[in-house]
C-alpha cells in the first residue's frame, strides 16, 4: 500500500507523433499517492494524448514513464489496468440492464465452486460504494442512474481491480452542480485512501476547489507544475493560452429593439410548465438552471424538434406552428444544439458539407448545387470564425472540439437568422476558443439578432446576458436583469427556487 506522498508515476520528456503532427513534444508529469492532480490546457494541448498513453491506447515515441521503481509497460489497456491505472471517461459505459454489483465485477465475478457468488459480489460492491461515500444499492439496475452515479460505479470497478491511479477525462462536463459536488466527494475519498487522481477539466473553478497540484500543458509540452497554493486563476489561464485574457466575456452594449420571440405559458407536462418570456432584437437572454431543469427542452420545443401541449410561440408577433423545424427555420430561427457530435454535426461529412447544410438556396443554381459557391461559402465562414482545418472536405470528426463548435455556429450563422438559440455554446472547448465564441454571440446580438443562450456556466451567464431567466424542475423561478443578477441569486433560484436576497 502506498503511503501519502509516495511518487507513484513519473513521466519525463514523453513524446508522441501522429504521422507528421506532433502531439507531445516532451511532457513531464509527477503523480504522488493521496493527491488530486489537475491536467489543464486548451484543446489540442496534448492532455488527451497523455491520458491515452497512460491508458495503454497509444504508445509513446520517446521519453521515460515509470511507475514507482518499475518501467511502465505501454501499448495495451489490459496491461495498464494490470499496472494499477484505470480511466474513467466522460461517458460511462455500463451495461444498463445489469445490476451495479454485476457491473463492478463484470468478467471477474467472485466464484463459489462453479457458480458465481453473487452475495459476495454484492457485499464487496456495497463496501466499495460506502468507501467512496456514495451508498448506492448494488442490487439495482444501472439503467436510470445519473451520469455521476454511473461514474461512481466505474470508479468502484477500478478500485475492485486494485487501481491506484485513476484518470478522469472531463468527468464533470456532463454533470449538474449537485452531481459535481457528489463526484468531488468521491474524489476526496479516493485521496483519503491514498490513491492518485489525475483529472482533466475545462471548469477552472472546480479545479481550484479540489486539486492539490495543477499541471498546465500547451502545444504538447508541460508549461508548469505547481501545488495549487502557489498558483492562481489568472496565472493558469495565462499559461494555458500563452497570453493574458483581459476579458473572458467581452460584453458589448447593443441597441435593444422590439420583441422578436415571445413565449406564452409553454407547457409540456413531462419537462416544463407555464414558461413565459420574451427576447428582443439585439438582446441576449440567458436560460440558467441546473442540468435537467428543462431548459434544453424549452429550446427544442421552440425550434419544433419536440411538440408542446399548451401555450404558444410567437415570432415578431406571428404565431409559429408547433413541432416543425421547417416552420421555425422559415421564420429565421436557428438552434445550435447542446450535443454537437450527435445533434449539431454530420461527423463523417466534410466541413464544407456541414457548413452549407442549411444554405442550399445560397449555393444552388437552377437545379443543382454549385460546388464552387459551396467552397466560397465555406471559405467565408472559415475566415469569419477562424475555423482551423486542413481541407474543406476533411470530415468534421477530424477537427478539435472548439473548431467543431465553430463549424456548427457557422452552419447556422450562414442562414442569417433573426433569432439565434444557442444551447451550451462553449461546453468542452478551451478558454481561447470560448472567448471567440462569446465574441461571435455578442456580434450576432449587435447585428440586431435576438439571442437565447442556455448555459450551465454561471460566469458565462452573468457576463453575457442582458436578462437571465432561471429555471428549476421545469418551472421558471426567476427573471433577473443584468444589473440585479448576482452569482448568489442565480444559484439560489436554480437550487432552491427562492428569488434570492
Amino acid at each position, binding site marked *: 500500500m502506498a503511503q501519502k506522498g509516495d511518487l507513484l508515476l513519473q513521466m519525463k520528456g514523453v513524446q508522441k*507523433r*501522429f*504521422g507528421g503532427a506532433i502531439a507531445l513534444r516532451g511532457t513531464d508529469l509527477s503523480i504522488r499517492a493521496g493527491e488530486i492532480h489537475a491536467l489543464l490546457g486548451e484543446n489540442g494541448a496534448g492532455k488527451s494524448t497523455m491520458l491515452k498513453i497512460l491508458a495503454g491506447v497509444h*504508445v509513446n*515515441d520517446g521519453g521515460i514513464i515509470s511507475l514507482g521503481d518499475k518501467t511502465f509497460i505501454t501499448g495495451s489497456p489490459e496491461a495498464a489496468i494490470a499496472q494499477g491505472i484505470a480511466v474513467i471517461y466522460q461517458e460511462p459505459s455500463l451495461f444498463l440492464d445489469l445490476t451495479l454489483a454485476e457491473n463492478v465485477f463484470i468478467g471477474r465475478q467472485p466464484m463459489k465452486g462453479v457458480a458465481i457468488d453473487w452475495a459476495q459480489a454484492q457485499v464487496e460492491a456495497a463496501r466499495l460504494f460506502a468507501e467512496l461515500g456514495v451508498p448506492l444499492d448494488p442490487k439495482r439496475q444501472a439503467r436510470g442512474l445519473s451520469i455521476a452515479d454511473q461514474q461512481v460505479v466505474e470508479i468502484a470497478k477500478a478500485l475492485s481491480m486494485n487501481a491506484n491511479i485513476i484518470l478522469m477525462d472531463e468527468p464533470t462536463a456532463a454533470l449538474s452542480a449537485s452531481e459535481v459536488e457528489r463526484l468531488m466527494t468521491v474524489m476526496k475519498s479516493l485521496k483519503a485512501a491514498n490513491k492518485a487522481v489525475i483529472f482533466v477539466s475545462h471548469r477552472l473553478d472546480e479545479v481550484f476547489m479540489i486539486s492539490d497540484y495543477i499541471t498546465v500543458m500547451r502545444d504538447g509540452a508541460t508549461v508548469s507544475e505547481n501545488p495549487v497554493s502557489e498558483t492562481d486563476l489568472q496565472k493558469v489561464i495565462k499559461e494555458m493560452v500563452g497570453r493574458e485574457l483581459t476579458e473572458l466575456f467581452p460584453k458589448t452594449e447593443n441597441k435593444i429593439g422590439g420583441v422578436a420571440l415571445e413565449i406564452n405559458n409553454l407547457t409540456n407536462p413531462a419537462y416544463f410548465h407555464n414558461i413565459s418570456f420574451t427576447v428582443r432584437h439585439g438582446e441576449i437572454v440567458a436560460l440558467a438552471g441546473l442540468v435537467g431543469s428543462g431548459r434544453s427542452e424549452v429550446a427544442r420545443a421552440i425550434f419544433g*424538434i419536440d411538440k408542446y401541449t399548451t401555450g404558444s410561440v410567437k415570432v415578431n408577433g406571428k404565431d409559429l406552428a408547433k413541432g416543425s*423545424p*421547417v416552420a*421555425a*427555420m422559415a421564420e429565421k430561427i436557428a*438552434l445550435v*444544439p447542446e450535443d454537437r457530435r*450527435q*445533434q*449539431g*454535426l*454530420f*461527423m*463523417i*461529412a466534410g466541413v464544407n*458539407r456541414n457548413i452549407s*447544410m*442549411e444554405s*442550399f438556396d445560397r449555393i*444552388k443554381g437552377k*437545379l*443543382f*448545387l454549385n460546388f464552387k459557391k459551396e467552397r466560397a461559402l465555406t471559405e467565408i465562414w472559415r475566415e469569419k470564425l477562424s475555423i482551423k482545418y486542413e481541407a474543406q472536405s476533411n470530415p468534421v470528426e477530424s477537427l478539435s472540439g472548439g473548431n467543431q463548435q465553430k463549424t456548427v455556429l457557422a452552419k447556422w450563422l450562414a442562414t442569417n437568422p433573426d433569432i439565434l438559440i444557442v444551447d451550451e455554446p462553449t461546453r468542452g472547448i478551451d478558454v481561447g476558443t470560448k472567448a471567440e465564441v462569446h465574441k461571435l454571440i455578442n456580434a450576432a446580438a449587435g447585428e440586431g439578432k435576438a439571442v437565447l443562450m442556455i448555459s450551465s456556466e454561471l460566469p458565462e451567464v452573468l457576463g453575457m446576458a442582458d436578462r437571465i431567466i432561471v429555471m428549476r424542475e421545469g418551472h421558471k423561478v426567476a427573471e433577473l436583469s443584468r444589473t440585479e443578477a448576482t452569482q448568489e441569486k442565480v444559484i439560489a433560484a436554480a437550487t432552491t427556487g427562492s428569488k434570492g436576497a
Partner: protein
Amino acid sequence: MKLKLRLTWDTSILALLVTVWIAASLTTDNFLSSINVSQIFSNTSEITIMAFGVIFLIITGEIDLSVASILALGSSMLGWSYAHGAPIWLAILICIAVGTLCGFINGFLVTKVRLGSLAVTIGTLALYRGIANGILGTNTINEFPDFWTGFGFDTIGTSFIPQSLPIIILFGIGFGLLLHNTPFGRRTLAIGQSPEAARFAGINVIKHKIIVFTFTGFMSGIAGVIYTFRFSTAQADNGIGLELLVISACLLGGVSIFGGIGTMWGVIAGVLLAGSVESWLTLREINAQWRTIVTGILLLTSVAAPVLINKAKAAKARAENKS
C-alpha cells in the same frame, strides 16, 4: 499538385471491374464481342433500375427486400390488365402505379407505424408476391405488342447497344446528379449519417424516407415493365431472388450497409461487375450453383473489404508513427 490515388472501395471496384474484363476476354473467345456486351447490359437492366432506387434507401439507413416482389406484382398487373383489354400504355402505367403504391406502403409502415424496414419488407416480400399469385395464379401471359417486346431486346441500328441502354445511362446520370448535386441528395446522405442531427438540421426525416421508399417502388415498377417485355412474360414468379442481386450490387459499389455513404458510379460499377462475372462464368460453362457461390463470395467481399481496408490503413498509420 500531387495526385494521390485514394485507396477506397469505390476505386478498388473499378480496378476489379477492369481486371475481370481483361481476365474474361483472355480466357474466353467472345467476352468482349458486341453480342455479349449487349447481353451483359440487357441482363442487368432491371437490377440497375432497381438499384437506382435502393441506393437512396440504403444510404438513408433503411433497406427494401421487397423490390423483386414489387416487380412481379407490377408485371402480373400489367399482363392481367392487358389480357383484360386495357390498352398497352394503360397496362404499363398500372404496373408503374402499383409499384409506386407498394413502395409507399413500405415507407408508411416503416416510418409512421415505426416497424423496422428489414421486418416490414420481409413481410411485403411475401405479401406482394402472394398477391401476384392471387391475380395470375400459374397463368403466364406472353402476348404483347412487338414494339414493346422488341424494346428490351433489340439493339440500336446495327450497333451492339441495346435500346434500353440509353435510358439506363440517362437515369444513371440523372440519379447521380440527384444524389450528389442536389439538396435532396445531400439530405439523403445526411439522414444516413445521423438521423438525429438531420432532425436538428430541419430535415423532415419521416417525409424524406417515405419519398425514398415510394420512389424505390416506382423504380421497381419500371423494372417490372422492362422485365415483362424483355422476356415477353408476365407471371407471378418473375424476378424471384433479384432483391439480393440489387442489394449485392449496391454493397459491391461501396454503399455502406449502415447508411450515410455511397456513390452512384460505384453502384453502376457494382452492377456491371456482378453482370460481367455472371457472363464470364456462363461463357466458361460453369454451372449455376457455382455462379451463385461466386455471387455470395463477391457480396461477402464487398462487406468485408471496407473494414479490412480501414484496418490496413490504421496499421500503416501505426507503422509510420513508430518509424
